[in-house]
């Protein structure tokens, strides 16, 4: 699992690739917390999942955890680019009702107010 966190023009980007499963959830939490606690002020967070090829309930739980954490600071989280198989997991778990999901990162950026 590769995780890249960066800030561009007050938008936070988390780029994920590989399998987002129970085995890498702690790594995601650690990397996110390190980056988030560095203190960059962000108004929106976009999670680019274009490289995520599989996902389970723990991975989904980690995303919900991140969403809750950033929501404490009134930051809106958006999901961009879901592969077909990952989209199916969002669909059957009804996670699509919780997250704002966009087909491309540009669309997600465009939706940031």
């Amino acid at each position, binding site marked *: 699992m590769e995780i890249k966190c960066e800030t561009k023009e007050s938008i936070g980007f988390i780029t994920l690739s590989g399998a987002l499963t129970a085995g890498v959830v702690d790594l995601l939490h650690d990397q996110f917390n390190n980056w988030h606690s560095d203190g960059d002020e962000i108004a929106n967070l976009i999670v680019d999942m274009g490289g995520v090829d599989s996902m*389970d309930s*723990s991975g989904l739980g980690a995303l919900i955890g991140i969403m809750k954490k950033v929501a404490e600071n009134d930051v809106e989280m958006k999901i961009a680019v879901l592969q*077909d*198989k990952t989209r*199916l*997991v969002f*669909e*059957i*778990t009804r996670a699509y009702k919780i997250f704002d999901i966009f087909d491309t990162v540009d669309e997600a950026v465009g939706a940031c107010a």
Partner: protein
Amino acid sequence: MKALLHISGSPEWPKTLNAPPWPLLPIGNRPLLEYWFELCVDLGIEDVQIVMNDFASEIEAYAESGARWGLKIQYGFEKDGVDPTAHLRRSPSKWENGLLHIRGPVFPVRTEAYCADALKALSGLLVDQDGSRLMIARSKEDVSAYLDGTLKDIRTDLSGLAPSVLSSASDFFRLTQNMVEGESQRYLTSGYQITSDKCLIGANTVIPPTAKILPPVMIGDNCRVSELTTIGPNAVIGNYVVIDQKTEMDNCIILDGSYIGQNMEIRNKIISGSHLYDAENEIGLNIPDPWLLGSTTPAKRSDESLRAITGWLIALPTAMLMVVPYAVLSILPRVTRNALERVNLHGINGKELRYKVIKTPANPGVLFELFHGLSLDIFPHVLRVLTGKLWLCGHSALLQKENEELKNELPVYFPAVICYEDAQSKSDVTPAAIRANSFYYIEARSPLEDLRLFFRFIIYRLNFLWAE
């Protein structure tokens, strides 16, 4: 009139569902095979011959003697690479009074006009698509034309029979959905009827008052539906299915033994254990997460464990008996540098094994004949059985291109020290024979069969030594 049902070959699409063998896939709430048997009954056929290859044990366990349908079923085993119609041509006189031949996943769709009496008067029918076919021939001429390959399309819709070839999981989904939407009425045996509210609920299925059932729905036997779930419309649920709380499902097929987690939304999907298939977008996916999807039936491990224990118990005294002769007889070849060769083997769980064994010399002398005759060449492999890296008996473990191809084709693979080919003369070991042996082993494997194969191998080697 007689029937020949060919259940050899495995179409690709049922593999995406990780479903039961395709002839046992439930269309509505009954396996495809059962619809074939009912067609036989409607045609007035009593003698049915089933020619199988893969899934032989499952098919035989399901259909048994055929007495449940008033049929007399005989079973045959088809070797790979043999033309399926060769079996028919071998004894043409057997089919002179008429033949029903089904090959591949063909569903005998009944249209609204279907009438069993009209079917009895049907002179002939041939549907042939993608190698799957359903053929009915009543006259001797049509049968012999079929056997010669000269029979052309003789479709007729007078009987209301319109066979449909299932060439994808989406075809299977569509057909099953048609069933739940009302077509299942056409397949009922005389004397039965579906309740007017279009809810079919099997025996010993528990549905709490807070669960909502929206017809049309088919739920199988021994299912557990939890509180606040919504099932239907157009949901087909198999046997032994557990649906956890607050889950909603419609337009879906849930195959036997599946578990659906809490708060899920299953729409336009086929689920078989942890496998999910999206019928709309034709995407299959395995979700090995017991919180979301899972299986309620434990994997059959007991037989395999018993076989592994038997193999280990045979390997232990074998290794103990071999250790001294191996040490003595391997000294001479070992001192010459070229006497060892590295082997690459498939191990259990896909692990690659690499170690050195004594090489077969170009001109084996008496000493090597003795070494080989006493089966001491397998000693390094037997040690790997003791450490759980190989099976004692099973499939050839050698990492070769041909074995790799065969391994990918086999539904389960047991890399082993001894396989059937090891107890056969070299002239009998052809690629076709290896393939047939490999599939046969999957069907016949048992601790007893392993024991038989082991002793057969030892006796073959000793005989070989004696002959030399």
